[in-house]
C-alpha cells in the first residue's frame, strides 16, 4: 500500500481528471441551463423587434407615400408582401388604432410583444383601418375616394 501512496503520478492525473471534469461539467451545465435564454431568446427578441419595426415601417412608409399621390376621385391599391415568421413566431398587423393614435401596431401572437410605428399625422385626415395576419404573405392596401 505504501507504494501506492508513494507513487504520486497516478494521483496527479486522477485529481487532474476530476478537476477538469468538474469544470467541464459545470461549464456545460451552466451553458445548457442558460443557452436557450442567452443564445436564442434574447437574440430572438432583438430580431423580432427589428422585424416588427421593419414591417411597421413598411406599412407606414407605404401609406405615407400613397397618401401624397391619392386621386381625389378614384381608387388606388397596392400589393405588399410580409414575412410569414418574425424571428420564430407569427404576428399580426393592426391599423385600427390609427384613427386615434396615428399608429400602426405589429403584435406577436405568442409573446404579445408589440411595436407601434407612427404615421406622421395622416390618419387624422383620413380613416385608416384593417389588419393583416402573417399566415398569408400577400396583402393589399386599397383606397377608394367614394367610400
Amino acid at each position: 500500500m505504501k507504494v501506492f501512496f508513494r507513487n504520486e503520478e497516478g494521483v496527479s492525473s486522477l485529481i487532474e481528471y476530476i478537476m477538469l471534469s468538474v469544470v467541464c461539467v459545470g461549464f456545460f451545465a451552466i451553458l445548457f441551463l442558460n443557452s436557450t435564454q442567452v443564445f436564442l431568446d434574447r437574440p430572438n427578441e432583438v430580431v423580432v423587434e427589428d422585424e416588427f419595426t421593419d414591417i411597421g415601417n413598411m406599412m407606414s412608409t407605404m401609406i405615407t407615400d400613397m397618401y401624397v399621390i391619392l386621386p381625389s376621385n378614384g381608387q388606388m391599391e397596392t400589393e405588399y408582401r410580409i414575412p410569414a415568421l418574425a424571428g420564430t413566431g407569427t404576428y399580426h398587423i393592426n391599423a385600427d388604432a390609427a384613427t386615434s393614435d396615428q399608429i400602426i401596431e405589429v403584435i406577436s401572437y405568442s409573446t404579445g410583444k408589440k411595436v407601434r410605428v407612427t404615421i406622421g399625422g395622416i390618419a387624422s385626415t383620413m380613416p385608416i383601418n384593417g389588419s393583416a395576419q402573417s399566415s398569408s404573405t400577400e396583402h393589399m392596401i386599397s383606397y377608394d375616394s367614394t367610400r
Partner: protein
Amino acid sequence: MESLKDDTKGQWIALSGLVISLIIISLALLANQAVVAGFYSSNAALELPKENIRELNLQTRENARIAMDISREINASSNQSISTAYASIFDSCSSQMRYIYALHGETIDVTLANMTYNNSSSSGLVWANISFQDAKTNYVSAPEIIEVIK
C-alpha cells in the same frame, strides 16, 4: 484520457473551438434574419411607383393646358372646332405616354372624358380618366378634373 493528459492544451483548444463555433453558427442564423430586416421598409419606398404616378398625373394636367392653346390656334387658322382639335391632340399625347410608360413595364391609359371651354378667355375645364397599373400597384383617377387657366 491518456492522450488528453499528454496533449492537454491542444485538446482543450479544440473543444473550446467547437463550442465557440456552435455558438457562432446559432448566432449567424439569427443574424441572418436580422439582415433581412430592413428589407421590407426599403422595399416599400423603392417599389411603390410614387413618382411615376405623380408624374403621369402632373403631365396630364400640363398636356391639358398646352392642348388648349394649340387647339385654339388650330381653330383660328382652320375650320376645325376646338373640341375636335383638342380631342385629337389629347389622344396623341396619351398614346405617346402609353408607349413611354410601357418601356418600364407600366400600363397606363389617359382618356378624355369631357371638356368645356370659354370662348373669350383661354380657359376651360377638362375631365380626364387616368389609370396606371404595374405588377403591384393599381391607380385609377376617374375623373381627374383639370382646370385650364390661361
